């Protein structure tokens, strides 16, 4: 194994050497993910039940506020109870929100790695992206139970679920790369997340159906189509409770996803050398 250490790396995408290195450290990635999962619900009574309780509680709150008080309950397409509608939106959303928050703060939370040991830094923001999947799977099971309990049949559109999930993970990872690399130097980013995450949620069809957004001004609709979480949240819901797959919105959104991911890797790669100097 030969290593060369020189001044700064150029702006460039991952090359073969980078990939080989990440593969060499795959066991570390696995151990960090296991650590995250093991530590998360240690010393709690509910344990992994929290993965269900958190989105379910939020779904109940939204059902009271938007479902009854704002009268959205009657405007749902296809006779889906509002609580099922919003819980189906909250399952992918909660994954996105917790993974992105975890990823953004990951470098800051692991400064001891940055200053004391070398391994490919990209593993650090990738860890929450993977570890939060456990919560996601648990809440997905809860969603399926809820759907069946309301007597709704799982629709055939569920076969598209893998596409939606891949887009969800790639979007989260791309944003995680950008935000974590910025947050380590400018801690403001972490403060901003408190506002950014709720704003992003209301921009996606989590509490309101997509139809409401489509009635807005054309330029707003265009902007929201390029916002990846619009297609992902709606697509996920269609996979679970039926309806028309929003293919063209998913397509526009995935363009954004790939731009964020591609530039995110380049940005992170250029910044990673200096993480130890800025913490």
């Amino acid at each position, binding site marked *: 194994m030969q*290593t060369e250490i020189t001044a700064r790396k150029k702006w460039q995408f991952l090359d073969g050497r980078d990939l080989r290195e990440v593969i060499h450290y795959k066991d570390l990635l*696995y*151990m960090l993910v296991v*650590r995250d999962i093991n530590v998360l619900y240690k010393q709690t009574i509910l344990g992994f039940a929290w993965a269900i309780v958190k989105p379910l509680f939020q779904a109940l709150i939204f059902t009271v506020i938007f479902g009854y008080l704002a009268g959205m309950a009657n405007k749902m397409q296809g006779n889906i109870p509002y609580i099922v509608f919003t819980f189906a939106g909250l399952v992918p959303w909660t994954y996105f929100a917790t993974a992105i928050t975890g990823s953004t703060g990951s470098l800051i939370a692991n400064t*001891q790695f940055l200053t004391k040991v070398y391994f490919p830094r990209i593993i650090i923001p990738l860890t929450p992206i993977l570890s939060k999947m456990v919560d996601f799977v648990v809440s997905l099971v809860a969603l399926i139970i809820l759907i069946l309990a309301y007597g709704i049949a799982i629709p055939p559109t569920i076969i598209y679920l893998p596409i939606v999930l891949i887009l969800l993970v790639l979007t989260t990872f791309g944003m995680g790369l950008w935000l974590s690399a910025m947050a380590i130097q*400018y801690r403001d980013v972490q403060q901003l997340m408190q506002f950014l995450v709720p704003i992003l949620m209301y921009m996606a069809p989590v509490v309101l159906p997509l139809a409401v957004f489509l009635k807005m001004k054309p330029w707003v609709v265009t902007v929201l189509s390029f916002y990846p979480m619009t297609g992902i949240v709606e697509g996920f819901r269609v996979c679970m409770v039926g309806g028309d797959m929003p293919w063209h919105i998913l397509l526009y959104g995935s363009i954004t996803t790939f731009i964020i991911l591609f530039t995110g890797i380049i940005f992170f790669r250029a910044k990673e*050398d*200096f993480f130890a100097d*800025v913490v």
Partner: protein
Amino acid sequence: MAKPIITVENVSKRYRIGLKEQVDDSVGGAIMSILKSPFNNFKKLRNLTSFDKDDEAGVFWALRDVSFQLKQGDVLGVIGKNGAGKSTLLKVLSRITPPTTGHIEINGRVSSLLEVGTGFHQDLTGRENVYLNGTILGMKRKEIEKKFDEIVAFSGIEKFIDTPVKRYSSGMTVRLAFAVAAHLEPDIMIIDEVLAVGDAEFQKKCLGKMQDVSEHGRTVLFVSHNMQAMQSLCNKSIMLENGKLKMEGRTDEVINFYLSKHSANQVEKVWDSIDTADGNELIRMRAARISKTDGTGSDVFYVNSDLNFEFEFWNLEDGSMINLSIVLNTIKGETIFNALSAAKRISKGVHRIVFYVPGNLLNDDVYSIDLYFVKNTTDVIFRLESAISFEVHDIPRETGWYGKWIGAVRPILKTDYLEID
């Protein structure tokens, strides 16, 4: 000749140091600076990674044009004062931070141990932490599995391996962490001051392990303030000073050079003029000097060196009966001994008193000497505290133990060792 395993060429590393904040002296100024602070903060944070040409003031070179080569099996000691750039060098070699300029080529797998137990998580058990820490240091899970029993046995905490680390004593955590590190099998090992942790017995174990590592043909880079350990582990050393490579060579030579520059020595003190010298109307100091009795070598004193303590003074009262009493203290203030010269009736003028201190009496430590000039063997007529100070260094030992040798003095006693039955 074999290809060097590490080649370091003209490596420099620049850091930005915090400049003094400006303080406002008016309410208006204070308000303005609050409004402006986001811009200033942004500039400051951005400047952590970008350097303008015109502000050399806030810039600090932790390393400057450092070059050296290591062959396989070399054990290199890195010596230098705090802030000399030792840790930065190790960080650059470990790829934690990139050099500002220069080039390094490494042929082999590197493990760096800049800290023991990086990534240990309090809520995880010892077992889980062994795996986590092992993979952080670059091991594969399979590798750890194979060595797991060995690691646990080395740490000596078999009973607690499934207990969360937060219930461990700090000593136990260190043991376990070092046990993991000790079972790495890299081609090149970079170690920073890990010997500063743990109790004496454990340190001994660690040093033994390090000796093993180097005997197996691995290359080791080692930073420590423990000259004993350096002396016996490292076949070559470099000395850094203010980021520059000051000396490179055999370990004993480099250590000698380092000690001669950085001992807490003030081995000679001369008072130029009788008018300004310490003293009073009876006695004035002229010189105080510590030197080796045999007059050889530098001003580096070892525990086995015979020393001369030499004091010159002006006696200003003709025919008075004077003797000198010296008190030798360690830097921590413990008194080691008090010694007296003979009392002598002396004439007005310059006199010199020499105390001969044999080798193998003083332990390694930093010492200072208080002087008491006594008249008629009863009255202290002049007292000078800490007249002079010097350091006594340890010598290379034959034993496997490199820690501090305890005791106020360190004599070599004549011993009999007989078989009687």
